[in-house]
């Protein structure tokens, strides 16, 4: 179904003065010979200005396809450096990029792909202070950072500035894609007025992600961005696309603009940018993990010394079985989620040291066990990661 409604604040047709060089005609010939793009669409792409926030898993396919398609000006925002764990999915980078600022490596890669386009680099974290200034120069925004504070920040900034926000999010094998902030369309707060409190929903560092998943979701974001620019097809506005790579199934749900939405509703209560770290409860590690700071701890070296001394310590590993296979300290495995119904496996008269990967889940376990009447329970500070750093470097970190 072709639609004639305005779906973005872009010009209806390309600037009459814009042209393509002979070489550009050749480069974009597979676009030009399709009536849905054609010369008019390609010139719109050339004049389009898209801001990509994040150059990681989602930002990689997005940046590559927008650059390849000839989007004339692409802004990149990132402050991170490339590390080894990124390469499983962040296909803008190669092994020799490890340690480089992502923004540099990403810009180099996109310029190598298409030297005719302009790449703007913003080596910064997007904040309430700089967001409006950065966003205002672009026609639309694609958020590839996939974290709650940036997501609410980008959403509110896009609503305030009246810009479309092509949204994608991933978890393990599952993705969500839609367009927020389009004229008349819903925003992220219409869907989710508030973020989950930290700790209630597992993060990806904890949850993992199939490497190709951000590739698929980011490529869909790229397709929607290109469609918005050329003004063709049915945009994903008011439609939430759910993708499950494990079942290899797409589903679609209706998204409605909420008249009571605090930012885009009839009587908005949020009219300027707020403190998003505070809003999402991620102000510092302490705020995120209250248990981690209140439960009794044991340092890795102290645990090692006590084990070597032959102290009667029961090591409890609260990670998942597949994590135990990566590396372990020989502890008794009870995943945190099963602890309440398997608590009878533990002897409350013995001294227990609980550990996980980083010390976060085991802090919850210690808190739970103490509330269940266990007196002598300690949390291994920093988990297996700290054990690897401080006691036994042969234990791999993941």
């Amino acid at each position: 179904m072709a639609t004639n409604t305005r779906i973005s604040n872009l010009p209806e047709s390309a600037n009459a003065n814009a042209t393509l060089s002979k070489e550009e005609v050749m480069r974009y010939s597979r676009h030009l010979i399709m009536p849905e793009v054609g010369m008019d669409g390609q010139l719109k792409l050339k004049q389009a200005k898209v801001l990509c926030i994040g150059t990681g898993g989602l930002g990689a396919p997005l940046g590559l396809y927008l650059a390849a398609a000839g989007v004339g000006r692409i802004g990149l925002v990132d402050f991170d450096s490339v590390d080894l764990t990124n390469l499983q999915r962040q296909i803008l980078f190669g092994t020799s990029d490890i340690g480089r600022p992502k923004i540099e490596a990403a810009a180099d890669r996109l310029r190598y792909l298409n030297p005719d386009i302009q790449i703007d680099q913003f080596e910064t974290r997007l904040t309430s202070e700089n967001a409006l200034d950065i966003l205002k120069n672009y026609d639309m925004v694609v958020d590839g950072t996939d974290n709650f504070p940036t997501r609410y920040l980008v959403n509110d900034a896009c609503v305030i500035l009246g810009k479309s926000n092509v949204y994608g999010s991933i978890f393990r094998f599952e993705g969500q894609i839609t367009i927020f902030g389009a004229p008349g369309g819903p925003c992220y707060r219409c869907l989710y007025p508030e973020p989950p409190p930290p700790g209630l929903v597992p993060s990806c560092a904890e949850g993992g992600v199939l490497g190709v998943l951000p590739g698929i979701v980011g490529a869909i974001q790229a397709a929607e961005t290109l469609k918005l620019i050329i003004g063709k097809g049915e945009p994903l506005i008011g439609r939430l696309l759910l993708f499950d790579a494990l079942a290899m199934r797409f589903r679609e749900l209706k998204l409605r603009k909420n008249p009571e939405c605090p930012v885009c509703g009839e009587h908005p209560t949020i009219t300027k940018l707020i403190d998003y770290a505070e809003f999402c409860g991620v102000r510092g590690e302490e705020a995120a993990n209250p248990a981690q700071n209140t439960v009794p701890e044991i340092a890795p070296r102290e645990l090692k010394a006590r084990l070597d001394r032959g102290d009667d310590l029961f090591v409890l590993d609260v990670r998942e079985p597949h994590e135990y296979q990566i590396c372990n300290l020989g502890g008794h495995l009870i995943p945190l989620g099963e602890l309440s119904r398997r608590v009878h496996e533990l002897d409350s008269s013995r001294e227990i040291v609980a550990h996980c990967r980083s010390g976060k889940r085991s802090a919850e376990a210690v808190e739970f066990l103490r509330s269940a009447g266990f007196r002598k329970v300690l949390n291994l500070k920093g988990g297996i990661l700290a054990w690897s750093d401080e006691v036994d470097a042969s234990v791999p970190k993941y």
Partner: protein
Amino acid sequence: MAVKVIIPTPLRPYTSKKESVELQAATVSEALASLTTLFGELKKHLYSDDGKLRSFVNVYVNDEDIRYLRGDQTPLREGDILSIVPSIAGGTQN
């Protein structure tokens, strides 16, 4: 009414890794109640302490958000599909 509830990946640790659950219910409220009876640990992820559905969890009957139907009193028909759709975020918090 036999209905199917689709469990999203982040909540599967609390449903014995099940991707979907078939159960009998006449309303959304009944379906969620029997789901949280089956899987007790799911409860705190779906409901806040005051018993309200959490604001980062949406529930759909087929493709429609229950907030735009009759909320948790939305009646169910045989074969309806309930989707629990929480907000997800795969990226790092910084």
